[in-house]
């Protein structure tokens, strides 16, 4: 334990990234995709609250994926429930 603590965070990360090799790149690609999906959704609900099917239509993403991201961003305070529109909730960027 003592020995582990001697490494700074930069050194720890450098060492682990080296051990991971190509795997690091894959994870960075996935992260970029995740950020892209969130940005696309937030852009659509920035000014006006929209339902999942409306967001899916505007972004070209499928409804299931949109809903999963809405759920994620609701949990982490980026999106709020606004109104009920028919059988759906309309969401808006916080």
């Amino acid at each position, binding site marked *: 334990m003592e020995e*582990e603590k001697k*490494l700074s965070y930069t050194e720890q*990360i450098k060492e*682990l990234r080296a051990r991971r090799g190509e795997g690091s790149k894959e*994870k960075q690609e996935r992260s970029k995709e*995740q950020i892209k999906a969130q940005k696309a959704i937030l852009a659509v609900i920035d000014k006006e609250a929209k339902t999942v099917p409306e967001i899916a239509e505007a972004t070209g993403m499928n409804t*299931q994926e949109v809903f999963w991201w*809405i759920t994620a961003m609701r949990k982490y305070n980026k999106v709020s429930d606004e109104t009920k529109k028919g059988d759906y909730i309309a969401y808006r960027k916080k």
Partner: protein
Amino acid sequence: MSAATIQKKADVLVVGAGIAGLQASLDLADQGKQILLVESQPSIGGRMINLSKVFPTLDCASCITTPRMASVAHHPSIDLLTYTEVNKIERVNGKFHARITKKPRYLDETACIGCKRCEEACTTYLPDEYDHSLGAKKAISIAFTNAIPQYPVLDMDECLLCGACAKACPTQCINFMQEPQEIEAEAGAVIMATGYNLTEISAKKQYGGDKYPNVISPLQMERLLAPHGPYGGVMRPSDGKIPDSIAFVQCAGSRDKSLGVPYCSRVCCMYAIKQAMLLSGSLPIADITIYYMDIRAFGKGYEQFYQNAKAMGIQFVKAKVGRISEDENHNPILRVERQEDCSQPEDVTHDLVMLSLGMVPAWIPDRDGIIPLEIGEDRFVRSVNEKVTPSLTSMEGVFAAGTMTGPKDIVDTIVEAGAAATEAANYLRRQEGR
């Protein structure tokens, strides 16, 4: 480099901190016994902390479980190890020797204050197993709001190694290089309380495997109904629609030899009725149908609970569901073969369907190792004296509590956990007298 092996001693080693393990530990600790309680998940509480409300009283599950979890965590005679695996338990000269591994959370638990700043800073999103993948968590996250203990786990397999969490942490307690901690424990007796799993939703191919987003498991339905559920209400996973028509398919993983589950899982009828009643409360105009072979309302007050559900307008249809498909909008279509008249099978479309999956043991000795207890034909741990002392296993000094010996509800689980604690205390007394 891994740290030196830690040595521990206890009167009783309890494996599994669901409601059975919690109850058995508290009963023994209150008698002055020293307990080592080992849980493989990041938090204690087992399945019960994951439920919405409980039949037949409709009390809030977390309101009942959380105080017990807190009592265990603060009890001076209970040494609690979470996110920890028991690898092997051996009986040597009348004592039990256990080899245990504490998995790395990648942080120093003695310094973490549970502030969640790491989780807020992390940008990697993952499906949240606590919400059965309906919701999301981060690569570093605390299991759920009232988790005990309130320490996060960093998922090293998914972590980007961006360092944002370490930067945000006010106590500098994150340690990306942390190794598993080996522990050796000695105990006078053992209580196994490893609980249950559900059969896979993909097991029944005629129900679409796991292809249809709006065909969900009973534990997913529990999360939809929970006050802090992933969607903030009952919606369906494919598009967030608030469902108008919901169906329950009973025996969708039990009483089926082809799945290796020929037995009745006992609690499915009751939890389906409970969920239907809760749905009817939150979606008063929705149509709710339970397709069943026969309703087994076995416990005290359970038949009345069933009759109340009928009176609330929940439809009970005695029918076999032959197969499930879906339309282009992901609406599940059920092929329904009614049992009470001679009508032809018909296709019925619903917005959301819950499959009452079967209960199977979470830990099976001949599959998972640890300790070679005998199992029954149903693969649950065999009680050697089921009628009189159900907590006795095939190994002297090892007792079983809760659903690890067979499907049962919370009341029976708690009663059995108390019995296992009494048997363990009696066994220790006999050993001391030798």
